[in-house]
């Protein structure tokens, strides 16, 4: 801001003031009062209302799709979130929530919902064989047809459209019909205007949009045509031979009043038993649907020997892994921090920077490298040990050595972080206490145990807890190192000796090769929830999040 020479001070100040207010670009600096509406201009309010309407429309469409697909809980949440956003943007009193709405909407749908839904799925048998909802299963079963003994038969002529759709012209003594998949039969005397008049054989001369297939073309499309069912239940037909189509009847009829499914062919009655329609003699109908099964998944965790065996072992190893990860990385990190915390050490910065490299490298890369180094026939570590001692452990295939290998890898990954925070914490320790201790004649070791370590723990304690929680769920390291392997023998679920809970869940739900078991996987997730809740409570005490919230009102 230039001031012309010779101008008086007050004038200069005035210029400054004017420039400043112009600089902030206030829109509509003098809005006419009569245009104000809810404390805002009419134009801005209308724009806002249009946006709110758009959000509402989007939410309703989304909700509609979800309801149509039987995803009721999510539909309810989408409704609540949409309503929340719309209300906060229309009610002036809720002004602050406009600012939170994007973040809160994301959190509610992407984070809160999965948490709540996990708790629900844990009490269901959701998984392979039970992947559909009840409504979907009933619908699917009711679509199945069978060929009755006394079914009607027709001769047929096929017509095909450009898009590959087929219609059949059916003829029998009882009359002629036009049959389309999923539509009721149309009798010959009520044909719509897009079907031309009948020729001498009683077949339409033309059907608009379709061409009549000759014998060769019929042969070409026979597989496609035979897979289709023409007509709409209860009246459908399916192609049986080049000459004949035969009537099909609905095989299963659901009786909502008695909650039973009846096989029309032989009259067998099926009743739903934990998500599967089951007959008296034990025959079941596939597919099953998922239902709540009470605490059975949790009982399986602890009672069923085939399942609880791997679970308990995985559970214990998860704690061992997380604990030793923290202990080893912290010990090594603190040791290096102490060693390099010397005023006259040359190249201190360079050393520290180079030691941070393992931390900077993404874990998915470095664990793969370590896995390569541990590999039996050509890995650097195995071959070196082989060359020196004539023996090397099976770092990937032996249950104990695989765990040792993981902890070595983990130490390499994590020590720089610990070194970093310990270096920081050491530098902030008060010097006078140490001087006093020296004067009192305390040795270096004693000073470390009685002063440095306790003071350090105050600063890094919460970070150690956080590190424990992180490693408790350290999927990347475990899964890349040996995919949880070596596999445990004789288990009914896919578990390995190095699996921790989170990788075990992953294998149960997605990568088992023995089918997905969402319900059981979610029950294990609940176990982790419980442990994480305890850890978080501990952190709360340490980090005083509570007080921060309370003071800062």
């Amino acid at each position, binding site marked *: 801001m230039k001031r012309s020479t010779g101008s008086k001070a007050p004038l200069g100040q005035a210029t400054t003031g004017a420039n400043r207010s112009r600089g*902030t670009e206030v829109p509509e600096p003098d809005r006419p009062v009569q245009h104000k509406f809810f404390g805002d201009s009419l134009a801005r309010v209308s724009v806002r209302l249009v946006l709110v309407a758009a959000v509402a429309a989007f939410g309703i469409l989304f909700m509609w799709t979800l309801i149509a697909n039987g995803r009721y809980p999510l539909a309810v949440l989408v409704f609540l979130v949409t309503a929340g956003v719309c209300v906060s943007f229309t009610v002036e009193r809720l002004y602050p929530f406009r600012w939170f709405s994007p973040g809160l909407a994301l959190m509610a749908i992407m984070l809160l919902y999965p948490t709540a839904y996990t708790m629900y799925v844990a009490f269901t048998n959701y998984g392979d064989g039970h992947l559909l909802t009840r409504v979907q299963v009933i619908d699917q079963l009711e679509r199945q047809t069978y060929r009755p003994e006394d079914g009607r038969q027709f001769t047929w002529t096929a017509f095909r459209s450009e898009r590959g759709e087929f219609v059949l012209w059916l003829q029998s003594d009882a009359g002629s019909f036009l049959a389309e998949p999923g539509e009721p039969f149309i009798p010959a005397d009520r044909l719509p205007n897009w079907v031309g008049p009948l020729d001498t054989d009683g077949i339409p001369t033309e059907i608009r949009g379709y061409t009549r297939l000759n014998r060769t073309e019929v042969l070409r499309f026979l597989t496609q045509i035979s897979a289709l069912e023409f007509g709409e239940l209860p009246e459908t037909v399916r192609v049986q031979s080049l000459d004949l189509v035969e009537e099909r009847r609905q095989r299963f009829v659901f009786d909502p009043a008695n909650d039973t499914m009846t096989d029309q062919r032989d009259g067998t009655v099926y009743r739903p038993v934990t998500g599967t329609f089951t007959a008296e003699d034990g025959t079941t109908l596939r597919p099953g649907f998922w239902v709540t099964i009470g605490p059975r998944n949790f009982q399986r965790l602890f009672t069923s020997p085939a399942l609880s065996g791997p679970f308990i072992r995985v559970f214990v190893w998860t704690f061992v892994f997380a604990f030793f990860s923290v202990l080893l990385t912290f010990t090594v990190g603190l040791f290096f921090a102490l*060693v390099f915390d010397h005023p006259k050490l040359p190249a201190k910065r360079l050393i520290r920077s180079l030691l941070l490299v393992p931390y900077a490298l993404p874990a998915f890369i470095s664990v*793969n490298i370590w896995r390569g180094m541990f590999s039996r*026939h*050509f890995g650097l570590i195995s071959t070196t040990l082989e060359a020196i001692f004539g023996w090397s452990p099976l770092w990937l295939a032996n249950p104990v050595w695989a765990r040792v290998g993981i902890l070595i890898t983990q130490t390499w990954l994590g020590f720089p972080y610990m070194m970093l925070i310990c270096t920081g914490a050491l530098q902030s320790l008060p010097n006078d206490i140490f001087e006093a201790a020296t004067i009192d004649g305390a040795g270096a070791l004693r000073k470390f145990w009685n002063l440095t370590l306790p003071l350090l723990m105050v600063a890094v304690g919460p970070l150690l807890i956080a590190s424990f929680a992180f490693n408790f769920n350290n999927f990347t390291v475990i899964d890349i190192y040996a*995919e949880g392997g070596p596999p445990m023998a004789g288990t009914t679920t896919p578990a390995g000796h190095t699996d921790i809970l989170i990788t075990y869940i992953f294998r149960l*739900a997605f990568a088992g090769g023995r089918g997905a078991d*969402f319900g059981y996987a979610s029950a294990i997730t609940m176990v982790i929830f419980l442990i994480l809740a305890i850890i978080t409570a501990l952190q709360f005490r340490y980090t005083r999040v509570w007080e921060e919230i309370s003071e800062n009102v």
Partner: protein
Amino acid sequence: MAASTVFNRHRQTFDIAGRLLIAAVALVFALTPVLLIVSASLDPRNNIVTQSIIPPGASLKNYQALFASNIHPYGIWFWNTLKISVISSVLTVLICSISAYAFSRFRFKGRRGLLLSVFLIQVFPNSLTMVATFLLIQAIGLFLPSFGLNSHGGLILIYLGGAMGINTWLMKGYFDSVPRSLDESARIDGASNWQIYWRVILPVVRPILTVVALISFIAAYSDFLIPQIVLQDTRQFTIAVGLTLFVRAGEYSRNWGIFAAGALIGAVPVVTLYLFLQKFLVRGLTSGAVKG
């Protein structure tokens, strides 16, 4: 007296020598895997046991092979990963800073409860609720296929949801340290809340924005679990998932050199960010986020 000084001087020399020795051991431990991978990437023999840092006949053959493969489209993975990480990072910073500004500057009923909920909801991350997250993304895909299974949009949504809690919290703490007099003077000049947020606060809080952007970028870049759940098609993969394909069971000996080349290129963005922005990160790390 003199003897003692000499003794002390010697002692100090020994002391420093000892420390340097430990430093040497530490550096060997820390850097061997890195040197190994550099050497393997240059070794056309595709051999994991290379004894010298620059292998005989060093060439860029592995790098060429890396980008030539159709089964493992590394170039596409790299682009996918950058796209997903950058978008997640930018949106996280934007949305979290809006919430953080409101938490820091507005006083309203229910603020304390909301603040606490934001902290508590993020205790259970998506990696943990992977089953429910998978089912959620499947359901979203019914309505918006570009945010459903096998889409990058779905992946980004998950990262955004997961990043809200801790980052809003981190930013709010930093925003609180910006003196209110700054807002007040802008307000007197007629600035609206949005203008104060965008023009006054954001430029001042750039350090925390950088930290959050970096943490979000690196978290998305290095994630190994969620992409495996959401993405199905190899061409949609991120580097983390794709790179591991090279060396999954039994393929080590065959693809080691190519993997090494891919690992080095994949490490470049993250390592560069770490090195350039170390000082920011140290501050950010010690205030909450962890790795390792």
